[in-house]
């Protein structure tokens, strides 16, 4: 985002009627179809591919660090 975009975003917009604002707020909400638990009270979205892959990669690296340490410990004991 450029500083010009930022200035545009920061600029004041006309106030909306309460009903219109409510409608627009609903419009930009996460659709039920994108939720893991399809219930209006739950807000967990299906993660994007990059989130799932990244999570699994980091998990594997962390497991490798612990396993590697255990392995070195075994070699020394």
């Amino acid at each position: 985002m450029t500083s010009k975009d930022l200035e545009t975003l920061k600029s004041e917009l006309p106030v909306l009627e309460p009903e219109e604002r409510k409608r627009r707020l609903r419009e930009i909400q996460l659709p039920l179809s994108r939720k893991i638990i399809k219930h209006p009270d739950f807000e967990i979205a299906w993660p994007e591919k990059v989130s799932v892959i990244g999570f699994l990669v980091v998990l594997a690296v962390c497991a490798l660090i612990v396993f590697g340490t255990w392995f070195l410990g075994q070699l020394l004991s």
Partner: protein
Amino acid sequence: MFGFNIWDLFVITLYLLTITSIGLYTVRKIKTVGDFVLGGRKFGKFFTTVRDFGLGTSTDEPVIVVGQSYAIGLAGMWYSLINIVSTPFYWLIRPWLRRMRIYTMGDFCEMRFGSKYGYFYSFAGVLKSTLQLGIVLKGAASVVAGISGGILPVWAIVLVMAALFILYGAAGGQYAGVITDSFQVFFIIMLSFLLIPFCVVKAGGFTAISNSLPKSFFQLVGHTGVSEMTGFFVLMAAIVNLNGSVGNPNAATVIGKTEWETRIGMVNGMILKRLCTVAWAFSGVFFAVVHPGIFNHDQVLGTAIASIFPVGLVGLMTGAMMVTAMSCCVGFMVIAGTYFMENFYKRITPDKNEKHYLLVNRLASVGCASLGVFFALVFPTLVDLLKYAWVVPSFVGMAIWGSLAWRRTNRYGAWATVIAMATIQAVCAYGFKLPFAVTAVIYLSIGYITLITVSMLTPREPEERLDEFYALLHTPIGQEDRLKYARVKILHY
């Protein structure tokens, strides 16, 4: 002189002055509160990595890990490595927190649970950040005192470091922390691993180490009755930390340009830290062969550096550790000052200009840093301080996790959870003197039950407030026009 060789003293002085000057130089970049608090959120992957590594890797942790590994073996690494369980979750959480477009978690709590809970969290945020600052300072000072052979008192080292970091931290804020970290991150990594070869050579090789220590020293967890660090302790401490990972006051300190930089920086920084932690643990274990019989475990690392490294390298290591701590302290002082300015001062005086708020933020940061120095001088040992730092965020973290996923989570549930968990934790830990892990099982279970039950039985948060909150949470950075379309208030882009 002061327990150091003259050349080491020269290297330390040079290192401290260089970093302080770099920190002071960054004052030119600070024009707004946003620059001071988060460096204007202009940073890419490298700077976010070094900052998250620097803010997460302070001198107290090598002190604790080396000291505890020296005493109980490799299991001592869990005093820092416990957060490895939370590490993959950072990949998911960081973009969410960036999307909230806030400076502090006090803003988050106010948005979700109303102003009273926001004030409460902000007060706790100031206290926790200053406490953390105290831990970091105490850790670094203990190492330097150890290196000087006890000639330099801890309080004097604390005061010297405080004078320097307060000076450049008040000038350059978080920006100064990022830039100084980027200069010395390589030293921290290199020096984290450097003790190992020196210790192995001094100990007479791996076979000598293996023969000199009991087998339990090479186990990743200890056994009940022998060491506190049992598998059960590790598991419970990991759960407590995962709960607290979003409750930490610095959780909203997100300096990346976009979500991608934010998550890459955090995860890279934390993985680097975990690798360094393993190196500290092996250093502690190996040093137990080289120099047995140190009873104050906070001083093991200092003694190791002084007795193993050659002249020059002692100074470099000491300087790097002091500066690491100072850079981390800058982070905490700015975070604490921002809580004061953003969540208290701005509420009382909302119509001042940017320059005024910047000045107040600087003064508040200096005030909070002074409180942290006080904590560093009065608390007894580092491990005592560290356990406070683990437990407190989990009291508020549970409601924050709940609020991210479940609309029914409300202010009553959040308040009830904090009160119930804090009371149960205090009764179990100090009244019945139950062990840490047992206490954690009890207060975490009661916390979850309280959050769900109270939230179900009390009125919901206003739907409009919830709609605004989740609109922010689900709108990626760069798509602010959608928020603008629905007139969602964006606090800090």
